[in-house]
């Protein structure tokens, strides 16, 4: 009897409000309400009607503990909707419908306001990049030594001395991965050097688009070196698009052809150690470069030199010494300095319960 009395008193949620979901392409409305504190509460049912309609129709059920819902099914932009919510008891009983929220209209936005910080960061970085690439013209900027890149020429030279080919593995990703583009940027000077030394370069690929780009890059490099006749298209080839078939194929090349130099530069996954250890066993000099943090320890262990993380993106500038490209590294350093400064200030302010810097990085 007491339970029934309690169930009969199940209250509808209060302060129901509905608003257009911000920063979206339309077709979604957010409904929020004050939670009902009742031990016999099971959840809430959300009802919707177009303005002018008599009856509300149920659109969703949410379990207790939540006090918001995004209605994105059956919403038409520009149409006025009203929402009401009711409580559902654990025995299946219902409260009355809440007071409907004021009418709401969904519409698509033209700008993601929650990405203003990203836009601002890009603008600052863009300014730094343009400033330093212009400022670097005619000047020689200092870049710290990167061992892996310093030894690229030596590695090519070693292959020449031994009369063996160079194996260049441009990673397993496609061109949509920036690491692959960085790898292609390094392939160009390596292929040029190989052409100058008349040393064959083997480039097995996993991605069809990367295969074609790599062929063109190597061909151009041979032409630039004045050796277009020495370019062999069949040495830059598509091996397999299956991860481990590719690994097996590259391992096979290492064991059969015995390249004197193995360069693993780009994006790698679980096959990184399979490739690097096989190369290590064949006695080749190995230089790896990747931004895949999880694969770095494997390369560091099995390779002679490892180009780590951002060094991969600095490689093109480092090798070409083009002032404009070197200037872009300066911009990167300034970007890092700003981020480090903000991280430091943010940490101090957070200890003082001031979250202004943390909010600057929030994206929601």
């Amino acid at each position, binding site marked *: 009897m007491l339970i029934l009395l309690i169930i009969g008193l199940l209250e509808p949620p209060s302060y129901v409000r509905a608003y257009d979901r911000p920063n*979206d*392409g*339309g077709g979604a409305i957010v409904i929020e309400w004050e939670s009902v504190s009742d031990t016999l509460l099971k959840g809430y049912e959300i009802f919707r009607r177009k303005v002018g309609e008599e009856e509300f129709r149920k659109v969703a059920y949410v379990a207790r503990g939540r006090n918001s819902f995004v209605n994105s099914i059956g919403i038409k932009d520009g149409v006025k909707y009203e929402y009401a919510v009711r409580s559902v008891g654990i025995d299946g009983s219902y409260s009355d419908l809440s007071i409907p929220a004021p009418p709401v209209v969904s519409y*698509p*936005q*033209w*700008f*993601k306001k929650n*990405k203003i910080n990203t*836009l601002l960061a*890009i603008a600052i*970085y*863009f300014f730094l*990049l343009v400033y330093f690439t212009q400022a670097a013209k005619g000047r020689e900027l200092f870049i710290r030594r990167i061992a892996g890149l310093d030894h690229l020429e030596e590695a090519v030279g070693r292959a020449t001395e031994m009369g063996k080919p160079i194996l260049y593995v441009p990673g397993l990703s496609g061109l*949509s991965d*920036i690491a692959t*583009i960085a790898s*292609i*940027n390094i392939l*160009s*000077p390596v292929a040029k050097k190989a052409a100058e030394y008349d040393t064959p370069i083997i480039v097995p*690929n996993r991605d*069809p*688009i990367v*295969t074609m780009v790599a062929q063109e*890059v190597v061909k151009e490099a041979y032409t*630039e070196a004045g050796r277009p006749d020495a370019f062999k*298209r*069949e040495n830059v*080839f*598509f091996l397999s698009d*299956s*991860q*481990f*078939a590719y*690994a097996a194929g590259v391992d*096979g090349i290492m064991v059969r*052809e015995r390249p004197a130099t193995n360069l693993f530069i780009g994006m790698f996954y*679980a*096959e990184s*150690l*399979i490739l690097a*250890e*096989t190369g290590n066993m064949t006695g080749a000099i190995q230089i790896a470069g990747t*931004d895949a*943090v999880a694969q770095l320890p494997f390369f*560091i*262990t*099995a390779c002679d030199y490892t180009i*780590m*993380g*951002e060094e*991969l*993106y*600095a490689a*093109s500038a480092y090798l*070409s010494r083009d002032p404009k*490209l070197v200037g872009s590294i300066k911009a*990167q350093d300034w970007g*890092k300095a700003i981020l480090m400064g903000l991280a430091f200030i943010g940490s101090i302010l957070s200890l003082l319960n001031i979250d202004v810097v943390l909010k600057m990085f929030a994206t929601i």
Partner: protein
Amino acid sequence: MRRTFPLVIAFTMGLLMMIQYFIPHPISQKFYKIMVQQWLIIISIFFYVFAWRSFGLYHINKIKRRKEGWWASVVAFVGVFFMLLAGFGDRIPGGIGHFIYKYFNFDDLYNYMFAPLQATMFSLLAFFIASAAFRAFKARTMEATLLLVTATIVMLGRVPLGASMWKGLPKVVEWILMYPNMAAQRGIMIGVGLGMIATSMKIILGIERSYLGGE
């Protein structure tokens, strides 16, 4: 023109895709879908044709010249054509294609031949990790000794044996992973992020041209 045209395309598309990221409107989303999902797929299909041509040329060249391991190229060709016929052999009336299609199920070939072969390659990783770890853990330098000590602590702390030796060990391991390890990883990741943005901008602005074949 040969250089300018790709640079103009890279600049225009890079800028449009960047602007698109900040616009949630359906027009912007449709543009993204057309460019990334539809165009990329269409282009990829054509590139696959060239890629298979490249695959064929490489292996034909190896077989012709009887290079070491040329028989592996024969196996590669047999594998490719066998799988093709197991998938499409019914479109060829009579002959070996029809025979293969009839008696060899494509899914079975994939599940019971290709997948185990992939798993076999992957399982080699266990042995390679052992040999690499053996080399890395030789305490010859200060860094290698530090690596050896840390790795031993982390390995012990991640198994029940470590906790039974000392109750506090899992907490020490958690601290190592959460603070020094995470700090180093985040340092690398921040650098990578900035490097990616810089490379993208350099390509959009035409400062970086190595990907076109020249420096």
